[in-house]
């Protein structure tokens, strides 16, 4: 269980690095050694959705206070 959480945290970090556009060589080697790309794709889609929702919320808050 703990291992699984750790794996997901690693994937989320890699996806966030991809959002920023910076990743180190060590993590890249490790990610490309994984069996399946799906966890990265799923994490990518979910985090993109979160980003969009966060932007929408920020706009709402700003407009409501403005």
């Amino acid at each position, binding site marked *: 269980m703990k291992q699984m959480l750790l794996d997901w945290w690693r994937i989320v970090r890699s996806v966030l690095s991809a959002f*920023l*556009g*910076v*990743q*180190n*060589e060590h993590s890249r080697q490790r990610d490309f050694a994984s069996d399946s790309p799906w966890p990265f794709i799923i994490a990518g889609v979910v985090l993109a959705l979160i980003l969009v929702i966060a932007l929408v919320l920020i706009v709402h808050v*700003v*407009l409501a206070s*403005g």
Partner: protein
Amino acid sequence: MVELNLTKGYWLFIALYLVVPQVSADLKYNMPVGVTEVSHAVHSLHMTIFWICVAIAVIVFGVMFWSIFHHRKSRGAKAAQFHENTLVEIIWTLIPLVILVAMAVPATATLIKMYDTSDADVDIQITGYQWKWHYKYVNDDIEFFSTLSTPADQIKNEAPKDTNYLLEVDQPLVLPVGKKVRFLVTSNDVIHSWWVPDLAVKRDAIPGFINEAWTKIERSGTYRGQCAELCGKDHGFMPIVVEAKSEQEYSAWVANKQAEKEAAKQAAAASATKEWSHDELMAEGEKVYARICAACHQPTGMGIPSVFPALKGSPVATGNVQEHINIVLHGRPGTAMQAFAQQLSTTELAAVITYERNAWDNNTGDTVLPQAIQAVLDKQ
């Protein structure tokens, strides 16, 4: 020796960077401060972001030039050969991100202010036409066209140009000082853009859409602008002049305009019953043609091949009168040929049609009377 020159050049460069913006900020090359709260906000936002850019430039180029100079080959510098450095990459990604977000804060505050068109005291509908502006005071039932009034001889370089060359109109848009005025901007034909820098208002005029903008002018005066969206041949000949007047003067102007409108109605009624002679209509028609139609169909009546048809010898202008009246009253939808029924009085319409049917050797001998125009309008 070489070293001395290089150092000098380097300091000169930095000095230029610091001095040039300082000077130009006060010159005509900069954005105007304007006469509204929004224009002040826009100007200070512009200056804030400008100075942020200057600071970034000085730091980035400063470090760059210093590094190039101090690690030059003649001093025996060796290039570093490392491949990646995650920490540096993250820093140079995060710093611009933080700067951009920081700039978004004042920018958003200004944008919200600009778009707040609520609670306006005066509503004005602005419609772009090729190539003039139409203003309609929605609450006061006043409307008029505002067209370029710079004389043709100045445009043709036959007379010296005025200071307000191409920035002068026959009827300016008159606005009250200290009142919130809402603009409803649209277009009759192609996309135009209503732009007055001193008000910090620039809004696209798009056919079929209404875009909103607003202003609250602080000082009375005359403010000039231009169409800011390339809209065809006379794009540069449809300026905007705003005259801001004190509240009393504005009310007096509105009352005067309304009286003028009443007088024009009576004059039109009188002219509709008046017996116009052929020659009177020709004389009046020539004036209307020069003022309204010649921009496209040309003073010679020859038009511009494949853009504006010639009226000299045109099958319409020498053929069926009813067809001719129809096209001038209703235009040809989807072309630059506008409907003139609302723009001109029945007398003006009758006169210009009579003129087109007889000028440039069209010689049909026809006389079109205001009553004939009225008959067509009544039928609708």
